[in-house]
Each structure stands twice: as C-alpha cells, then as structure tokens.
C-alpha cells in the first residue's frame, strides 16, 4: 500500500489531536467522584463568637475551666508548663493586656485586672493569612481562619503578624505532653504553628464549638454574623460589645460583653 505524503500528514495530525484531547475527555467523562459537605453541617456565612464576661466571671472565679478543658481534650492540646513553649488555643489575659487601648487609670474595678477569655479572633482581614508563604493558613468561606498543618513549614511569619498572640509554635514533639489523647483528632508535630480553629471539624458535622458546648454559664454564644436573625446578631444589636484592638482593622469575629 502506498501512502501519499498528504495522507501521512493528515493521519499524523489526527493522531496528535487525539492525544492532546484525550486527557480532557477523560477528565470530563471518566471522573464521577463526588465530595460533599455533611448534611448535618451548620450553615453559616461568617461565624462569630460573643463572650459574656459577666456570665463567665462568677463561674470562672470559682475555678471553672470547662471551656479550656473541653478544647484541650477535643484537639489534643499539649499541656506544657514551660511558658516559652506552651501551646494556647483558648486562655485568659488580664483586661489591660486584652484591650490595651481600652485601658486608663480610672477604669471600673469590675473589669480592672480581670481575666478575659481570649482565643483566635478569626479576623475578617487576617494578617496571618496574608503573610503565610505556603498558604498553610487560610480563611474559609465561612470566615474561619484555618491552618493546614500539612503545609506549615514553621517559619512563624504568622506568629509575627498576629496582633493577638493567638498562635503557638511547637518547639518540641507535643505528644508526650498530651494527657488524654482523643483518637478522633490528629495531634501536631514538632515545627508547626497551631491555633484555635473555631472547631471547624465540629461545625462541619453539625456541632457547636467544644468551648461553647462546655460552658455551664452559657457565656459563649456562637453564631452566624451575616444572619440578622441569629442569636449572636440579636445580642450585638441590643448590647454594647467590644472587640480586641479594633483600631488595627483586622475586624475580629470575637466580641465581648463587659
């Protein structure tokens, strides 16, 4: 059989086109894998938290640490006594440290030096996300500022950028410091940064954050900031609330009732 040069070129062209299109065809036709959000997931466009310190203090001063303990258990947070290496997701700061610009010498006794519960603010404009070179820290669509520990290289830019000190670095292997291991949540490893994740794993499966659920005084109120009918918005509309360091423009999603 004889093939003319023209026919040979035509056939080659057709083969080449086929080879080029094949991956695209496979991508469209063969791939039927689906990934869904859980049907139980809490629906919200922008999660926020109100902390009512007046409800918290009477319990807190009596030694209630239920929110801290619930968080610690849920997320395998190591209990490291050394202040320089401790891991903090939710903890307390005296008023003067939590609200440095709200402090003056005549502040009422009721808040002076009182412990305020602080955690990651899940900012609208998170500086930690902006500086992360690997995109290990990112903001989800529902406003939760998350960390992908698989990607964290431990450069700690985010710690330098966070104006709230909400991030901790694992200077050593955290596993020996975990009292009670929760097998359903991974631990972290040496050399990564970690912080509060607003219980994204619980919100995605229809549960409230562990701290909110554990609070016996119901001092922590979690809800959707974009839903005008949500409980959290009703509180924000009816009571005077403060945020930490609002002047920085990070727009925190955590509000305080004093």
């Amino acid at each position: 059989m004889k093939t003319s040069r023209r026919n040979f070129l035509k056939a080659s062209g057709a083969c080449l086109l086929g080879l080029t299109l094949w991956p695209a065809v496979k991508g469209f036709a063969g791939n039927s894998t689906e990934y869904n959000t859980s049907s139980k997931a809490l629906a919200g466009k922008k999660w926020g938290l109100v902390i009512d310190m007046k409800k918290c203090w009477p319990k807190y001063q009596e030694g209630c640490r239920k929110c801290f303990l619930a968080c610690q258990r849920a997320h395998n947070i190591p209990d490291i006594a050394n202040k320089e290496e401790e891991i903090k997701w939710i903890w307390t700061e005296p008023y003067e440290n939590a609200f440095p610009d709200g402090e003056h010498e005549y502040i009422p006794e009721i808040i002076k030096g009182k412990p305020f519960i602080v955690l990651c603010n899940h900012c609208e404009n998170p500086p930690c996300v902006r500086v992360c070179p690997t995109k290990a820290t990112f903001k989800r669509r529902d406003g939760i500022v998350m960390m992908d520990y698989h990607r964290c290289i431990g450069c700690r830019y985010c710690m330098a950028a966070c104006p709230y000190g909400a991030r901790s670095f694992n200077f050593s292997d955290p596993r020996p410091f975990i009292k009670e291991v929760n097998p359903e949540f991974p631990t972290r490893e040496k050399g990564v940064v970690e912080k509060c994740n607003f219980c994204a794993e619980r919100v995605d499966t229809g549960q409230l954050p562990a701290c909110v659920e554990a609070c016996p005084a119901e001092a922590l109120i979690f809800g959707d900031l974009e839903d005008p009918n949500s409980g959290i918005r009703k509180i924000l509309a009816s009571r005077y609330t403060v945020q930490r360091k609002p002047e920085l423009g990070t727009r925190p999603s955590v509000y305080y009732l004093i």
Partner: protein
Amino acid sequence: MNDSRYIITGLIVFIVLVTFPFWANAGKAAPPAPAPSLDTPAIQQLPEKQCVEATAYMRTDHMKLLDEWRTRVVREGKRIYVASNGKEYEMSLEKTCLQCHSSKAQFCDQCHNYLDVQPDCWTCHIEPKESK
C-alpha cells in the same frame, strides 16, 4: 589522546558503580511481596467486606485518594466522600480507614517497609492501638 587510559579507567569505574545494584542482585529472586492480613475484628464483622473503593484501586491509588481527601476536608470543609458505588463515607483517616484497618504494622508498615517509602502520616494522625 595522552589521557585516554585515565579517561577509560574512570569511565569503567563509573559504569561499575552505577550498575552495581543491577549485577549485584542479578540472578537472585526478589523477596516475596508482603500480603497484608485483612483479618481484623472490625473487618470480620462487616457484612460485606469492601473498602471505600475496589481492592485493586486501593492497592495502587490509596495515596492519591488520601491526598485528595485531605485537600477536600482541610481546605474545602467537605467531609463526605461519595464512593463509586454511591455509598457515602466520612473522609477521615482516624474515623474511617483505621476503624477497619486497625493494625498499622500489618496494614501499613509491611508494604511501606518493603517498598522503602516513609509517609509521615503518623507524626500527627493517631495510629490505632493494637488489640492483641
């Protein structure tokens, strides 16, 4: 051409070194491939002994599947995997995979050691306690 003997000697040494693994192992049978035992209590209790996907696919592509799962869960908040047979599974190493494959030594280490690959999943994810 004055340096030819150095060059040729060098080349021979280079070729011998580079091909060392081939001729050193020539004629020897490869060690038998491990056959992980799937005889865990959880699997025994399953009415239908079927993983999230077919065994052949899991054997060759579990790493791609897990990689995809982690992206979907961590970065997109999607936690449900719809398998090709339509069944839904939670995408979780701890809550899904390890519930059936409860022996890490049997199920993971055996093959990974054989192939000399060291995934670092277990520095964070908690391996199941061996119930023996």
